[in-house]
């Protein structure tokens, strides 16, 4: 009996992962892609997206949920890239330059984001989401109205014909795939962008190391319980801001890596979906609002992008309409975020009720306050 219960719990805890594996297994044959084709695409996409998804980890440790505000970092990265293209800095140097421009910007934006979230404790996620929308307006103002008018832009080719404002699509030929091609390894039929993978590996090492530092430990304490952390003398608000700042800076680098792989940039839309894809990926990998690991990130990227890659084709072959597949993958993306949030909220409540029962059975009335606090969380 208890074994069956355990199995049920494992299934419930990994419902999203299992659902995704099932969907992919069904969709792959219908897509008609060869295994080799799919694997190559996955190698590329792992390189393209991992950095962005890993940027989500620290705020989760700090108990701030999924950082939808990472879009701010993506915007900073894009401004960096615009500058690099404008100055005509080619190859990997262009990427480094973009990162150098993006870093102070994203530190500033991250600090703003953290401060705003500190004022909205308990609803960081929705606040971050709206903040990203808000900053999108500011970004549009900067790039569409001041670049070329107030902020000097040297090359007229990236400007709109009216003389100011950056073109809707920016050609990134100067830096296209410059990180990927730095060390492209050929193994059998596959091309593997080793340099990109190395950068991602360095980030992974950084995250593992960071978790062990004093600051990292503080962050986890804050994530575990704000009140306890505060009374233990941890500067709660400051720690939370640092988590978001690091996340935003990482998102900035992540977006630069993402865009150098894509090779061109939709100036006003490239960042729209950044948060959505990254959050969907880490949730598909089995992470929750409070708990996430490196494994969740990589598994999630693989599963989500497998799905995203095969479903338009599968839709085309199954229903004779590519649009159905296209809508389907967006439905799955949004649906999976909703589902994981629901499952998590539901699980927290179930555990809270359970904890309350345990305390109730223990008797003493002094405990009921603690139970209430557990329930409120």
């Amino acid at each position, binding site marked *: 009996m208890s074994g069956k219960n355990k199995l049920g719990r494992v299934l419930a805890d990994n419902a999203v992962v299992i659902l995704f594996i099932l969907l992919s297994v069904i969709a792959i044959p219908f897509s008609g892609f060869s295994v080799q084709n799919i694997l190559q695409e996955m190698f590329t996409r792992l390189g393209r997206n991992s950095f962005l998804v890993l940027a989500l980890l620290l705020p989760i440790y700090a108990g701030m*949920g999924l950082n939808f505000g990472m879009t701010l970092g993506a915007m900073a990265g894009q401004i960096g890239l615009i500058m690099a293209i404008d100055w005509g800095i080619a190859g990997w140097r262009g990427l480094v330059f973009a990162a150098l421009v993006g870093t102070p910007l994203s530190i500033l934006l991250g600090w703003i984001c953290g401060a*705003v979230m500190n*004022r*909205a404790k*308990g*609803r960081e*996620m*929705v*606040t971050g*989401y*709206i*903040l990203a*929308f*808000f900053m*999108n*307006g*500011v970004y*549009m*103002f900067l790039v*569409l*109205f001041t670049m070329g008018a107030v902020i000097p832009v040297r090359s007229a080719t990236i400007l709109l014909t009216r003389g100011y404002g950056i073109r809707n699509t920016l050609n990134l030929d100067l830096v296209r795939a410059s990180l990927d091609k730095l060390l492209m390894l050929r193994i059998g039929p596959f091309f593997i962008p080793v340099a990109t993978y190395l950068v991602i590996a360095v980030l992974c090492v950084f995250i593992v190391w960071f978790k062990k530092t004093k600051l990292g430990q503080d962050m986890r304490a804050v994530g575990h319980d704000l009140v306890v952390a505060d009374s233990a003398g941890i500067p709660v608000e400051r720690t939370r801001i640092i988590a978001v700042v690091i996340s935003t800076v990482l998102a900035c680098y992540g977006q630069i890596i993402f865009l150098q792989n894509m090779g061109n940039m939709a100036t006003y839309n490239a960042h729209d979906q950044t948060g959505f894809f990254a959050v969907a990926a880490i949730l598909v990998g089995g992470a929750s609002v409070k708990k996430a690991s490196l494994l969740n990130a990589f598994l999630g990227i693989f599963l989500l992008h497998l799905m995203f890659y095969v479903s338009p084709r599968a839709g085309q072959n199954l*229903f004779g*309409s590519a*649009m*159905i597949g296209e*809508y*389907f993958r*967006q*439905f799955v993306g*949004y*649906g999976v*975020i*909703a589902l994981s*949030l*629901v499952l998590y*909220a*539901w699980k927290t*409540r179930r555990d809270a009720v359970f904890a309350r029962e345990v305390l109730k059975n223990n008797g003493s009335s002094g405990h009921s306050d603690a139970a209430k606090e557990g329930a*409120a969380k």
Partner: protein
Amino acid sequence: MLKVKEFIRDFGWPRLIIFFFLVFMFIAAPFVGVRLDASFSDVLNRFGMNAIMVLAMVPMVQSGCGLNFGLPLGIISGLLGATISIQLGVTGFGGFLIAVFIALFFASILGWLYGLLLNKVKGEEMTIAMYVGFASVMFMSIMWLVLPYNSPNMVWGYAGKGLRTTITVEGYWLRVLNNFLAIKFGEFFVIPTGLLLFVALCVLIVYVFMRTKTGTAMTAVGSNPDFARASGVSVDRMRAISVMLSTMLGAVGIIVYEQSFGFIQLYTGPLYMAFPAVAAILIGGASVNKASMLNVLVGTFLFQGLLTMTPSVINSLLQNDMSEVIRIVVSNGMILYALTRKTKVSK
């Protein structure tokens, strides 16, 4: 002086700035060659179009479910009602009513289920609502392609199936409310009497409802769930009812919007429709957990006024299309302000 200060703090700087900005634009309009009467008529019309969707925020805010980012669910029900009514081919006022009734039917079912879902996730409603809304819009996008509609006015001409992205309601129930008893002053100024009456009716219904036993219980649940439970109110039931009511209002709201706008927008059209409604009610003075009819009316008027006036005035003033940026910054800035504000009444 102290009183003024308190009023400003209660009302909030952002709202005052928006208010004065709007006043400034009305004053500036004649100087840059924008006709005041035409703009004012436009504002009235857009106020009527959007007011009911803003009204849809009230029940959920009052019952403590937060801002209804899940409005797309109601909108989808409205779209179902509208398309089915056109499929049936009923024209005129009857067509509009049929659309509303079908929409209410779907909205009550979807809203109830949605309410049960939100009961399971207390405290995380807003984020989840947003994604439930998005997911349902995408799901319906698939449905619009596969559902067996065949009215030649709605499906793609060459394939004979799959609904078009925008469907005109012309020849069915275009402007049935707007033109009802409409009063015309001169060439440019029209009061859409029927539309405003319908909005007034909806506001009245919600106003009366919030004062019935159920409505009071709902507000109690929102202000203090523990106290409400102690006085024998079923918290979950009240919340579910409020969500259902919000969804139904959203469904009616989109049909009213469409009859004036002239088109039904399908597929990804409803994706972001919740945000203007949320921004409007917040501009009107609502907070995350308190909203009144006055907030709805004032907020819709201010926000729609802003949306109408900025493009015409700013564009002729600065010779560029800055209005889009202003719209984004104002509406999201307002939501952000409400989310980060430590309200005196919270808890």
